[in-house]
């Protein structure tokens, strides 16, 4: 057994887990935060994406013990009370989801992607960056549209720090 402690969405959490516990299972089963999904057992679908120390990672392929000491953000940590995060708002506006199963991972991947591209995003980059996220419903089209719109909106909100999205 391992004693783990980490910060999840700004809140300090700790617990004792079996060493083989995956981070996603720690979040879902120990902390009861079921927003992070498991969609495959081959580390390919990205439904489980969370941010660890500011970087998008697959929580199905990391042990909770490996993540101990880190800062985790999940889909539950994005909205500000009733106000959706701009990426969540863009997914709603542009119909970037159907069944919604892939959506938490898509949105965590999108927020990471936007943060890594302060110069703005174009469609080709968004599609390439979505390599690790599989959606069985939408055909990706509206997901790409939503991410481009969010990147633009967040660029504007960023006090002109961000150049025009291509």
């Amino acid at each position, binding site marked *: 057994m391992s004693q783990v402690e980490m910060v999840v969405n700004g809140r300090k959490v700790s617990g004792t887990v079996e*060493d083989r516990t995956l981070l996603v299972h720690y979040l879902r089963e120990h902390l009861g935060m079921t927003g992070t999904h498991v969609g495959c057992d081959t580390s390919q679908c990205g439904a489980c994406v969370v941010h660890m120390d500011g970087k998008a990672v697959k929580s199905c392929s990391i042990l909770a013990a490996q993540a101990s000491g880190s800062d985790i953000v999940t889909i539950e940590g994005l909205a500000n009370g009733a106000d959706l995060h701009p990426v969540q708002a863009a997914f709603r506006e542009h119909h970037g989801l159907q069944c919604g199963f892939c959506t938490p991972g898509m949105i965590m991947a999108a927020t990471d992607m936007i943060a890594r591209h302060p110069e703005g995003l174009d469609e080709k980059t968004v599609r390439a960056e979505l390599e690790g996220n599989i959606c069985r419903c939408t055909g990706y089209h509206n997901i790409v549209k939503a991410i481009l719109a969010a990147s633009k909106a967040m660029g504007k909100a960023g006090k002109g720090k961000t150049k025009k999205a291509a």
Partner: protein
Amino acid sequence: MYSTNYHRASSVADAVKLLKKADDGKFVSGGMTLIPAMKTRLAAPSDLVDLRHVPELKGVKISGKTVTIGAATTHAEVAANAKLASVCPAICNLAAHIGDPHVRHMGTIGGSIANNDPAADYPAALLALGATIFTNKREIAADKFFTGLFETALKDDEVITAVAFTAPAKCGYAKFPNPASRYAMTGVFVAKAKDGVRVAVTGAGEDGVFRSKEIEAALSKKFDASALEGVSVSAGTLMSDIHANAEYRANLVVVMAKRAVASANG
């Protein structure tokens, strides 16, 4: 996943000590190969010794044309290193096309070469660059390091600490990614240095990464895609699987080599 015991190493010496104490332990770095293998019970180490928090294993150092990359440096860090891109852009480009962004945030160069997957990207780069692999015990030339399918010259309790190479005058990499996994269905790394042209092929060989003498000979005459017109490589030792047969891969080797040279020549 079978149960296991997790240990976090604070230094290379600590990691070796922890592994020696274990029954059937393994190092874990990014975990992007080992944890998926444990989930499917293809691997069941009694103990995991985590290298991700060992400071001496991290970072890229460049002095003149000499490049040293710490074993626990992630693919994302290699891809985004501007200084490295100015002396050897091909390796940044290679790292930027491994798997997906989430895998690149965790996966490391040391883990990739220790695993020596026959379809992994880094082995081709290190073999073509004539790199040296540094461990806690010794230095190993890339030519001696990759010994077969998922096989390397490493001993069980040997930790890769870094890889180093001299940036060549020109180099380039091209891969035909498997449409589902993004691993190389065939990937070719070409390098033109003072002491000649070296060409390494991944994703195609039955025994893993290998140097292509045919392509090296042709490119030594003229380092240009046109030099590869009419050149063919033997399908004899290439692999056949559900994705492609050996003849198809033999053709891909030449096509990827042409693209790699074109990208090396910019």
